């Protein structure tokens, strides 16, 4: 009796299709409608069709389940599927799950997407008046928005690291410059440091221009095997590796309750990422740090080891800093729980960004660093 051959393992995954519907304040259709169009666009970008799709992964916060989306699109069978929680922390982990399915031969063509009518659909906390679990100790005090939770961390970081308002303003101004080169970005108006400093306080010490946009958006991404990618008429962005992490005593957005204040989950992701990719920060040519709020950029450089703790604001102005958030990011392009950062990371590998870094070999994208999170590296060359 012959035993069946063991399936091949550890194939490499590559992103082969990306597509974003035009960002807007009111997209004029349901999230499932926009999401389906984004997926079809990403498949067309890859030169694939719905018939090729055999797996889907999504954010838990994506209102359309992968089953509903597969039904709408007419996918014959999902050989693998799943969801990742925690809002803006879910981006890179969702792509990581898609890549894991490919690497382990669970699936050959995986679709992921994020469609969110976060502008026209209203603000989620308006209807969250019953505070369950961790929220019962936070929401009654108006710690209801992401910015409320972030403000208390930011005050701590400002005092610990001696940040000046300009240190955060520089991030907002730089990303607006990037957005103005990107016709798809929602914010095209120039921003000066004076504009930043005179913007109104939302949750002291955070100002309006420290905060991301509120956007209707739909973005799709398609991954397949490196082998199959070679037959497609696109430049593959190979998934070199990824990492995830929560850190101890995690409460999303408000992890104030552990032993040490202000240490983010990204500090736990970074060693996993560098071990998994066998790369170091010096190998990274361009980065997209999750940017719901400006402090996440200087911290990102520190957390991922581009510079030492406390040196982020100086480092990002230095010639040693790689270009960051080249589409304008969540602050000035669109806010889509970081999915726009993921496709921008792929564009940097393809060489099609409007703020293109030269000779990109490795492109880093991170997800939200104040929630359970992850990071991923897309590369020009396969393993």
């Amino acid at each position: 009796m012959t035993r069946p051959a063991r399936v091949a393992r550890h194939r490499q995954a590559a992103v082969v299709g990306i597509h974003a519907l035009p960002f807007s304040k009111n997209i004029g259709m349901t999230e499932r409608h926009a999401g389906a169009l984004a997926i079809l666009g990403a498949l067309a970008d890859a030169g694939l069709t719905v018939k090729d799709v055999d797996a889907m992964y999504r954010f838990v916060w994506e209102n359309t389940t992968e089953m509903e989306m597969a039904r709408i699109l007419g996918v014959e069978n999902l050989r693998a599927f799943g969801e990742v929680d925690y809002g803006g922390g879910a981006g890179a982990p969702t792509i990581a799950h898609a890549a894991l399915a490919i690497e382990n031969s669970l699936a050959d063509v995986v679709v992921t997407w994020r469609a969110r009518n976060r502008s026209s659909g209203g603000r989620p906390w308006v209807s969250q008046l019953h505070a369950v679990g961790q929220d019962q100790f936070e929401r009654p005090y108006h710690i209801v928005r992401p910015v409320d939770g972030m403000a208390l961390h930011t005050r701590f970081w400002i005092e610990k690291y001696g940040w000046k308002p300009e240190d955060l303003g520089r991030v907002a101004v730089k990303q607006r410059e990037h957005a103005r080169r990107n016709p798809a970005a929602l914010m095209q108006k120039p921003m000066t440091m004076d504009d930043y400093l005179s913007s109104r306080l939302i949750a002291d010490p955070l100002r309006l221009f420290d905060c991301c946009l509120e956007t209707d958006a739909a973005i799709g991404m398609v991954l397949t095997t490196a082998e199959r990618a070679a037959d497609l008429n696109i430049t593959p962005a190979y998934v070199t590796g990824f990492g995830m992490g929560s850190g101890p005593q995690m409460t999303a957005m408000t992890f104030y309750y552990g032993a040490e204040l202000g240490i983010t989950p990204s500090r736990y992701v970074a060693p996993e990422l560098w071990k998994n990719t066998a790369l170091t920060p010096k190998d990274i040519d361009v980065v997209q740090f999750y940017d719901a709020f400006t402090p996440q950029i200087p911290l990102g450089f520190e957390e991922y080891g581009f510079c030492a703790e406390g040196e982020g604001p100086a480092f990002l102005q230095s010639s040693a800093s790689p270009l960051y958030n080249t589409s304008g990011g969540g602050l000035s392009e669109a806010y889509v729980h970081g999915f726009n950062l993921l496709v921008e990371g792929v564009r940097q590998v393809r060489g099609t960004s409007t703020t293109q870094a030269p000779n990109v070999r490795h492109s880093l994208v991170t997800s939200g660093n104040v929630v359970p999170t992850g990071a991923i590296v897309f590369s020009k060359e396969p393993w």
Partner: protein
Amino acid sequence: MTPAVDPQNGFPIPVVDQDTKPFWDGCERGELFIQRCRNCAKWLWQPRPICSTCQTPGPIWTKVTGDGVIASWTVLRPPTLPAFASMVPFIVLLVTLDEGVRLLGYLVDDAGRVCQTDGSAEGVTTGRRVRLRFHDQAGTPLPCWTLV
């Protein structure tokens, strides 16, 4: 049974369960209770059914003074929900109790009224000592803190 909240003008209310009821019952009596492990004596926050250090079940709800220091703070300005509109600007403190755990609460006066302030007149700053007061928010007694 969790009471209904007026969707137009209501404050967010805690949904109390078996694990958090002793905390809120204490608040009703004007007392602050924090869990402490019956085995390793570690103070635990937020409420949980077992100790996260030694995994001993049934941490003991222990009355504390509520004395502590400001670990961080923010000033809320635009009211996100209509219920908060008459209160802004006000301060939410992150307080480290002398037992080492951190809780959120409004900055209130000695009588437990939420201070309408940006904190500049009061000299709110990290490290300042605070003491416990309770603020009744539409029937929910919330632990809050006043400057010492």
